[in-house]
């Protein structure tokens, strides 16, 4: 995959320098592109102060790229994510659906179907060979198919993080059936099952199956077609990946760093816009 090999640090600015920043409900992500190559990226919790989080994450990315931490260094910035319009140093905003499509197409050019699972939303996207969105669905107001669902369950089952849950889920021989469609009720259901003495791995696997099932149902109004790519923070969880693959009957390709794909898409838009302006 092109992402890892493309990262290298520059000592000084050369040519065009653009950034993409994706401020999601749970994390803020930023990425710096220099003449089409990824120079650095950063991921940081969004927290309660969006401005602080965006400044922090862009500075970290600039630092990692070996550049001055002033946003004035950048020729063009595109923001995405739910807080995309509150980033004062951004030149343009693009929706995260479009950015994920563009970013996934960049790292995996054969991508035609994308599932993105973030902190508070999940999306399924059909794309053309150029990475343009041709159809999409996004969850409505329910958290049951999102990272937040897993976060709640990680707390209940005392697992450190969402990604740590995945390998435990894969150990299960008999996943529990979690039938509740609501995060809050599912939490109660898990508590009851735990009290019944169910194995933790079976409970965790059940939780993963439940979240995978939600997303698969949502995505089923589109056409699953290869190559399918899995992006967003939840894509780091091997358990969700496996159960989702079972649900949709197709292999999911996961980029090296799936959480920054939206920011990468934004950076690619920034690059295109800057070139257009020149």
């Amino acid at each position, binding site marked *: 995959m092109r992402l890892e090999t493309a990262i290298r640090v520059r000592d000084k600015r050369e040519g065009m320098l653009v950034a993409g920043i994706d401020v999601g409900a749970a994390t803020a992500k930023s990425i710096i592109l220099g003449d089409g190559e990824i120079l650095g990226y950063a991921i940081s919790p969004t927290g309660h102060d969006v401005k602080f989080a965006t400044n922090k994450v862009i500075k970290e990315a600039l630092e990692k790229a070996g550049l001055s931490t002033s946003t004035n260094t950048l020729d063009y910035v595109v923001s995405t994510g739910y807080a995309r319009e509150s980033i004062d140093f951004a030149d343009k905003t693009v*929706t995260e*659906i*479009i950015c994920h499509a563009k970013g996934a197409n960049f790292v995996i050019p054969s991508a035609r179907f994308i599932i993105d699972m973030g902190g508070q939303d999940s999306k399924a996207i059909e794309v053309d060979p150029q990475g343009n969105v041709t159809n999409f669905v996004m969850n*409505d*107001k329910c958290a049951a198919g999102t990272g937040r669902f897993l976060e709640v369950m990680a707390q209940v089952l005392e697992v450190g993080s969402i990604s740590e849950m995945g390998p435990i889920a894969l150990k299960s021989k008999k996943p529990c059936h979690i039938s509740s469609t609501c995060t809050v009720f599912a939490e109660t259901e898990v508590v009851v099952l735990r009290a019944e003495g169910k194995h933790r791995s079976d409970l965790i696997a059940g939780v993963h199956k439940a979240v995978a099932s939600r997303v698969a149902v949502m995505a089923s*109004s589109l056409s699953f077609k290869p190559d399918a790519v899995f992006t967003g923070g939840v894509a780091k969880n091997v358990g969700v990946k496996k159960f989702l693959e079972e649900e949709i009957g197709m292999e999911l390709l996961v980029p090296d760093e799936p959480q920054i794909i939206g920011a990468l898409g934004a950076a690619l838009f920034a690059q295109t816009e800057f070139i257009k302006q020149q």
Partner: protein
Amino acid sequence: MAQYYDDLLTLCGFEPEEIEQERPRIEKTFERLGIGPDDMHTADQWVRQNHDVTLQGVRKLLGAWLKELIDVVLAKDEGKKIVYFGFPAITGPGLMLSASSEDVFVCAPDMVLDHTMGQIFNKLTPILEAGEANGLPPGHALCSLWQAKIGGIVKGMIPVPDLALASSYSCDMGSKADDLVTAQYGTPIAYIDGVMDSHWGEYPDYLPERVQYLGAQINQALKRAERILGIQIAPDAWERSQKYSRPFVNNLLRLLELMRADPVPVSIAELELLEALPGSSTGRGIREGIKGMEILIHELEKRVKVGIGATQKGAPRVMIEVGHTSDPRVTHLPEDVGLAVPLTFILSWVGGPAIKIEKTYATPGETMAAYELAAGPFHGTDAMIKRLEMATEVMKLDGFIKNSLYNCRVSALSSHIAKKYLEEKTGLAVLSLEIDDFDSRTHSAVSLRTKVETFADMLKARKGISDGMRKVHKEQDLAKQVGI
């Protein structure tokens, strides 16, 4: 003597002499609704932010809703016998009752509250909360319109009706919510049972038995209404009831013809003010609405002539399901991201392709039933899809935004079916949007915006239009440009 509300009412199309003449009624109404001087600034800003007040026709339409509000709030005080029907409803029986006696007042009060306490005063939430606290709790997929109606009654803003006219053939939740009014206040109900289902592919035909059954239901409901209200339905009530509904539909057709222009001459949020009016008012609201429409037609003709629009020329054109009844910001969303909206589904039904009833029927009930069945939407999802397909050509559409209301029995499922079939039949993109068209508390504005914006960019890409199109700002001197 000028009062604190004069400026707002003037903004909403009231003439000075109307304000003077109606001052005692206005003051009594506002007092009952808890509207005072402190609300005027918010209302003024809210109206200017969401409506094109450079158009006198729009101001008159806002005024039409306000006048209907005054009439419903004071109906009991003024000795009227009050009949409420739900929305959507078979409005013919209500119109006939209204045409038969000056002492009878008939309306859909929930829609009136939405369009005034919501669209003008931005104070609908306490009314909805009162509905939620009195039999229609939140989170139970219960209709927000019914919450508004119950809330309005509980808060003493609108009077307890003397009769509820419940038609269940489109929305079966309405008749159940009327049960609640009966349980709490003893209000009698005249039910119009209906036949909701037709065979897939049946529309535009309909079985004669359905007309007979629905017609008989309407006739018996009218008889029951006569008994309860102590009135006689005049022999010419049906003809008289058409006195205002016909001109309304004719004006709507003229407006929709203007909406075919590119650029679309006015925001769909302004035509939303017309969507529910014929289904909500049988009195002053609809009469004043007709006057507003005539002014608006004149103003929009000028705009079309000089090419002024609510969005840029060449913008992708989409049909939306329905405008938001209480929060116009939601209705504006597609236009805010550069989509032109020439039509809504409801408008296509009210003013859509001409409906011809070949046969003449012996009773008003059957005549109404035949009309309702021929109109389409109440046939079922298949008829709805066919209507939308028809509109595709007429309005030169590029896509559809189909709302899915989780708490609406009529649309919760049909919108998902419609997405699939419309995509297949028209080849156009369809965005299914989960949204409550009557209550803006239940959705995430950010999430809605993301979906609509992505959809807009998708359509622009299909048309080969670059992005960056944004709505023409309504505060610009459009009025000067067209000499209004």
